[in-house]
């Protein structure tokens, strides 16, 4: 009886571990889609409202959920109200937000490198510079989505398989 309970626990543990890996992948995709929405809205504020970046961040903070909402508000306050340097403030706060997120270094760079695409004197040129970043994110999301379906099945099968194997070995 104890052996059986142990086997079930081992199998449940392995399945749970692989489910966690799959969930991380889903969260990664969710975050990337959230970043895409942020940039799309930002593009609108730049091209049609001609809003300065801190002002656009304030408006974005009202339309976005955490983890970005709080960071956008902080960046707005520090840059707009205290006159702090935008690239450094952005990198500090967004770095803190992304620190515990399941994103790869390349994916984090989509966010952290945002200040480097600023500096254009005309709103459409600035929006187009943001388009470049958006294209890269879109491509990455498509790749992730394509590989995720097959990958999830494989990870789950491996998890269950590993659980069974471990149970046999332990028996």
């Amino acid at each position, binding site marked *: 009886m104890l052996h059986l309970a142990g086997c079930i626990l081992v199998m449940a543990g392995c399945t749970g571990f692989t489910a966690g890996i799959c969930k991380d992948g889903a969260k990664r995709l969710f975050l990337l889609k959230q970043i895409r929405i942020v940039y799309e809205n930002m593009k609108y504020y730049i091209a049609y409202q001609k809003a*300065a970046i801190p002002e656009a961040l304030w408006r974005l903070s009202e339309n976005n959920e955490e983890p970005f909402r709080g960071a956008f508000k902080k960046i707005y306050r520090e*840059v707009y109200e205290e006159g702090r340097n935008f690239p450094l403030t952005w990198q500090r706060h967004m770095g803190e937000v992304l620190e515990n997120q399941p994103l790869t270094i390349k994916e984090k760079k989509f966010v952290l490198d945002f200040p480097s695409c600023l*500096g254009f*004197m*005309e*709103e459409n040129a600035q929006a187009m510079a943001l388009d470049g970043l958006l294209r890269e994110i879109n491509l990455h999301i498509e790749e992730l989505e394509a590989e995720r379906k097959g990958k999830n099945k494989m990870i789950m099968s491996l998890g269950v398989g590993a659980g069974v194997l471990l149970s046999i070995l332990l028996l």
Partner: protein
Amino acid sequence: MTKREEIMRIFPDSLKPRWEHALLQVDKLQEIRLAIGQPVRIMTAGAEKFLSDKGISDYCNQDIWCITEREINEILQNVCRHSLYAFENEIRQGFLTVPGGHRIGVAGQVVLSGDGSIRNITHIRFMNIRISHEVIGAADEVMNFLYQDTSFLNTLIIAPPGCGKTTLLRDIVRQVSDGNPYAGGKQVGVVDERSEIAGSFMGIPQNNVGMRTDVLDACPKIQGMMLLMRSMAPAVVAVDEIGNYEDMKALSRILKCGSSVLATVHGNSMEDIYKFMHMDKDDRDNSRAYRPEMIFDRYIFLEKRSGMCKVSDVLDKQGHRLKKQEFSDRQICA
């Protein structure tokens, strides 16, 4: 926020320590002039100083700080909040207004569009940071001449550059708007073409222009005056630096709509005004209606003596002087 803090916010974090120390040593700061490769010059009331590694210096010696291209770019990016595109119109006009109403004039390489108009300014290499000097009460001594019963009289402020025209205009606007001992508050519309009267930043006036004042910022005078008449129904319309016959025609149209006008013009005398206003006159038959005496009821003349800006004369519609002796000692601004 104090004026010093407002000025500090113009500079990026990397340059702040340098300025923090220097600004403590400067009294009556008027301008900061920056040019790539040239010494940083600080203009105070009546004197030019230089910024060195040790602080403020009266002489241009070896320790003087010469500003670099990177530093100018950092200041520009900081002022524009890293959003140059949002300040495209201001840069095209050659100046930016920052919180506090301070103005930053810029110069560099002009980019022209196909029709020859200025499209933008790139490679900004020169900056002139002009510190805003709002003087509350500057108009106290003239307010009693600007009303008949409780109606505001059409008024023209005349003075050479740097004599406090805009300072006086701003305080008249404030007093007309808030109310004063001679009349209650009136709705005022300000067409602030160069953002000098209200010193608006992102549309918010940084100077006190009164609670009943609507400001149309960075808008050409002629279009702005009619736009305000249609949309905000002001009792008094104020504009800075009228300069030609078309401006006079627009002021005349405002009078026909039943509002009063308050304006300033460059000049030393009434003769100067006639000369400027009729400079590009093309409609001689109808020009009489647009002559200053057909529009204005009061003329305020300003002058600068010993570095102090003062009201020198107030004339009525017929050119009669109104109590000159009262203006002898009072100062508008330094």
